[in-house]
């Protein structure tokens, strides 16, 4: 900043240097504080949400919540038992559909695919996982609900499966890539066919990581509401057939939250508490698997 370096100006120069050092340090401190402030500003509303869910949820939850279906408006009590069971049914079916597709697709990408086509598929999977889930709901509506002439649990599960596939595919592929080639080669050298090697050696070595991916995918769809509105639709009662509309916990939270009744709001908070605790349990388990997986 100062190009004059002649001997008669050393004092001036030292002073400017000192001042600029002071300014630089002050700037450093200010920016550090701002960044710390950003962290607090981010955690504050999130903490607030968490506290409210805990407070409102714990004060409204009861044994009834887990045992009963919603009561008609105006009657106190009732629960979301049908929603919880419905969610489990939907997630179970979605997993049956989505997980095999994701895992086998990932095996293709990591074991067989040419690099160009793999890149295309990988890219499409990433793009697919960014598509708003309400669009997935609309597509499944016109593909399944319209031809089957009715909202159904099947359609809901199918929509959730579409959301799971890219997540499972990408995480599984990353895990398979980390398995050393020498393991595959050792198995092949023993005369084990490639497909058995892939299943029994490659996939198995990556199992903890793959499990993490599956748990994360389940956690993601467990809270999905938008794709279920025009597929599973929701149900005030128990549903006995997969071709009928079925209740789901997030759908019930939604419709109870926007209703103008305090009783229903209480049920929505209790439902939110159950959902959040489930999510946290899932992601903590996923983290645990992820950690043990990396150590090996």
């Amino acid at each position, binding site marked *: 900043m100062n190009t004059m370096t002649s001997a008669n100006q050393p004092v001036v120069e030292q002073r400017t240097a000192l001042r600029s050092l002071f300014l630089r340090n002050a700037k450093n401190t200010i920016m550090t504080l701002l960044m710390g402030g950003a962290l607090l500003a981010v955690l504050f509303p999130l903490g607030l949400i968490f506290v409210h869910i805990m407070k409102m949820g714990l004060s409204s939850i009861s044994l009834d919540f887990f045992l009963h279906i919603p009561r008609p408006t105006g009657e106190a009590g009732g629960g979301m038992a049908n929603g919880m069971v419905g969610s489990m049914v939907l997630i179970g079916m979605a997993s049956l559909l989505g997980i095999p597709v994701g895992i086998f697709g990932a095996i293709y990408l990591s074991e067989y695919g040419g690099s160009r086509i793999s890149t295309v598929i990988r890219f499409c999977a990433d793009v697919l996982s960014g*598509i708003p889930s309400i669009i997935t709901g609309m597509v499944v509506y*016109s593909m399944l609900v319209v031809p089957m002439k009715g909202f159904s649990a099947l359609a809901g599960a199918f929509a959730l499966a579409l959301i799971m596939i890219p997540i499972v595919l990408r995480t599984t592929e990353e895990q398979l890539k980390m398995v050393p080639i020498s393991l595959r080669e050792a198995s092949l050298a023993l005369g084990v066919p490639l497909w058995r090697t892939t299943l029994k050696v490659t996939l198995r070595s990556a199992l903890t990581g793959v499990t993490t991916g599956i748990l994360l995918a389940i956690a993601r769809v467990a809270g999905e509401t938008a794709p279920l509105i025009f597929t599973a639709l929701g149900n005030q009662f128990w549903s006995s057939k997969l071709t009928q509309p079925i209740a789901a916990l997030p759908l019930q939270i939604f419709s109870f939250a926007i209703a103008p009744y305090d009783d229903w709001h209480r049920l929505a908070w209790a439902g939110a508490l159950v959902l959040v605790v489930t999510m946290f349990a899932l992601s903590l388990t996923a983290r645990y698997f992820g950690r043990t997986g990396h150590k090996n």
Partner: protein
Amino acid sequence: MSDVTASHRWKIEKGLSGDFIFKAVTVLFAFSILVILMLMLYEMVSQSLPSLRKFGGHFMTGMDWDAVQEQFGALPFIYGSVISSVLALLLATPLAVGTALFITEIAPRRLGGFAASLVELLAAIPSVIYGLWGILIMTPWLQQTAQPLLQKYLGFLPFFQGPAYGVSMLAGVLILMIMVVPIITSITKEVLLAVPRSQREAAIALGATRWEMIRMAVLPYGKSGILGAVILGLGRAIGETMAVTMVIGNNPKISLSLFSPAYTMPSVIANEFAEASSPLHSAALMNIGLLLLVITLIINALARLLLWSMSRGAARGAKL
């Protein structure tokens, strides 16, 4: 990395064998991704054809949304989606980047790791729960406390005028901001972690303060990755349905004031699609869906390209 992956592309012999069948199954499932994507595009286009035929380009500029008169124009929804997402991103980006920088560059490793996992855990909260909190806690607070205050001190601006309903564009922006911050933070954090140590060491060795190191060595290196993270956040915000639907007021009106209720593209789909009154009504909603799909496809493709250019083959993309 590319050498390693290239060297174990197994080739199998032709003919019907276990290997052949197994590979065929994997091929089928891998290509199903492409099929799903194509099918989605096809369905959305073919279902919105009646609306495309009737309204064409006017659909995007039309202001009326009248199911009885069968007049459909999507401008209020496009406006609502764009304004709410962009404002949310403007608020969220500095917070998210600051948080990611604090976690990776400043905090002691243990504290940083703790904060990071907290943020990540909160990113997993479903949007309907943000909506529940938004409608039962945040909007009453906005109506009774925040909006009167804003009106008192900033009421001369056109953005803070009109009656305080609570449910409003402002509520939508705030809830979206809260929701996208964790996403942008966690991707930015990964991007920053990928900046080589040597970059930082070089800056420090030249006598840079920590902020100067961040500004001169870390941020320029992670620039495209951070941009990718922000664009990905934009994609999330624009497609976000439940939470926004619950707090934004659902009124197809274009107003400069953040206090007035608005409507977004996903919200109108969520509210009206299941009970569309006529084939043209549902086609118009499909048309909005198609617009949304195209916008998010472009946004996501752009974000992924930026993130991939940052580090090819890294495990980053898989996380979302």
